[in-house]
């Protein structure tokens, strides 16, 4: 049982300081666990320490603007904050700064935005309760309760036992709805569940901006869509086509769960926090980053192929995904233009309903892979299946708009 495990876990660490429950400051934890601490704070400097362009093509740790890289996105997300600022993500030590500085939602951000950005959150949620935390404007939270730290130790660990723990109610609630009892989670499952508190698609429910993960019907894209359709939910109305849209965000956990690695029990930490030998002991590498720069300690413990071969496989799976992602982008732009034209030519809302419905479906699918951060690697075939289906829907949206009867002149 977990209790017993924690007992033993405790004895193996030599403690210099006692760490308070929910201690937000990683430096304090670092007194007891210097190796993990020093590795963790490197997530601040990933882009300095490794030149990503030598390894990969699609990710990296420089927060470049996706809007500059893909000007089309401005049209695709027209009318939604993501058309204002939208960057590649970087290491955990940036979480707080990036959420504070993004122009997305300006200073209208609800407290909910802070949920996945700081190790002050577990402490605060205990103090305020989740509902009130979400409902408080983010800037008030920051000022009143002195939020200082990015995502760090307290977000994943129990200070007493160092065991992994779930600190975000949204995840616990979503799993409960699916009938999964987290107290029964194995240690290996926890190595993915801690990540799934944040690396998942989410939406806000109601005035209080209550944080909910859309998993009631399952984790697959069609199931997530069915959930939103069931609620008649939309994130926004598309500024050009007036379609009721859904924005998908970082569904890493959802996509991973459909892949062969998940099927085989390979979890997030296996690839993003591999074991590292430090002197006489093996510890978990806390420099959380892309495995592309660390294939030897990640992939190569399980796969016997060479480093070059394994890198080749990642890039091949990503290139295939990127090809269809790009074609999907073009199909979406074409669909938007066709609907825009039809509207300009006075086609009635009734006659455009089908096209708009298809636009919503197409973009939700496309975004499920576009917003996911592995460029398809977490589940290569599923990623490409979803994109193929997205393209079909986008082209059908275009066809529907082209065919929609024009009013007699």
């Amino acid at each position, binding site marked *: 049982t*977990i209790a*017993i*495990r924690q007992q*033993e*876990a405790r*004895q*193996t*660490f030599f403690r210099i300081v006692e760490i308070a429950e929910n201690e937000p400051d990683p430096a304090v934890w670092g007194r007891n666990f210097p190796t993990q601490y020093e590795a963790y704070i490197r997530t601040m400097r990933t882009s300095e320490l490794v030149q990503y362009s030598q390894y990969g093509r699609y990710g990296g740790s420089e927060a470049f603007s996706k809007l500059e890289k893909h000007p089309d996105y401005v049209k695709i997300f027209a009318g939604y904050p993501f058309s204002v600022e939208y960057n590649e993500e970087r290491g955990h030590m940036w979480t707080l700064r990036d959420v504070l500085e993004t122009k997305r939602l300006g200073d209208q951000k609800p407290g909910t935005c802070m949920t996945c950005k700081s190790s002050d959150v577990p402490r605060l949620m205990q103090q305020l309760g989740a509902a009130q935390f979400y409902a408080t404007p983010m800037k008030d939270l920051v000022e009143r309760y002195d939020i200082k730290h990015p995502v760090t130790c307290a977000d994943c660990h129990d200070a007493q036992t160092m065991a992994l723990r779930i600190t975000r109610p949204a995840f616990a609630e979503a799993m409960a709805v699916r009938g999964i009892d987290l107290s029964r989670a*194995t*240690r*290996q499952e926890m*190595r993915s569940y801690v990540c799934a508190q944040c690396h998942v698609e989410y939406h806000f429910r109601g005035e209080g901006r209550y944080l909910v993960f859309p998993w009631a019907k399952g984790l697959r894209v069609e199931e997530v869509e069915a959930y939103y359709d069931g609620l008649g939910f939309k994130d926004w109305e598309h500024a050009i086509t007036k379609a009721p849209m859904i924005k998908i965000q970082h569904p890493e956990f959802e996509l991973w769960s459909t892949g062969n690695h998940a099927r085989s*029990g390979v979890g997030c930490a*296996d690839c993003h926090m591999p*074991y590292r*030998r430090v002197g*006489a*002991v*093996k*510890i*978990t590498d806390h420099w959380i980053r892309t495995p592309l720069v660390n294939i030897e300690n990640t992939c190569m*413990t*399980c796969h*016997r192929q060479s480093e070059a071969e394994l890198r080749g496989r990642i890039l091949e799976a990503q290139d295939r995904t990127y090809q269809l992602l790009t074609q999907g982008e073009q199909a979406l732009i074409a669909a938007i233009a066709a609907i825009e034209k039809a509207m300009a030519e006075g086609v009635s809302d009734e006659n455009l309903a089908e096209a708009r419905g298809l636009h919503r479906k197409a973009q939700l699918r496309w975004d499920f892979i576009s917003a996911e951060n592995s460029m398809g690697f977490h589940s290569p075939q599923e990623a490409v299946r979803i994109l193929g289906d997205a393209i079909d829907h986008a082209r059908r949206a275009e066809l529907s708009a082209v065919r929609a009867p024009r009013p007699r002149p």
Partner: protein
Amino acid sequence: MRTWGLLSLGVAIAVGLVGGLGVFTFVYGKGYSYLSDDPAACVNCHIMRDNFDTWTVATHRSITCNQCHVPESFPWKYTSKARNGWFHSYAFTFQDVQLIRIKAANQETLQRNCEHCHQRLVIHMQPPGAQRVRFCFDCHKGVGHGL
């Protein structure tokens, strides 16, 4: 060693009989010889051939089969051998064995042996008695039998 061998031969045969098997298979299959710690003993059964061959090219070729596949502490060592001896003779006699897959109980034994030898190294990731992340050999596939 010899006395152990004889003693456990007894145990094995006993279990074998309880299991409704004659001594024949066991003797014919030179089953008794596999109670010794010499890996060569294992290949008295052709069916162990692949596992033997691949062991000879594994990083652990200096470790005997039994150091991994048989529990450390007496008397478990020999009851386990008897249990396996029974499975072995059984399978050897009655099944057209195609695929050999280690049984759950024997995976646990293996795991304990990995942890036993590498305790110091894995003390943090795998505190004694702590629920395991998973089997060591999920990642370290080739240690015993090449890849």
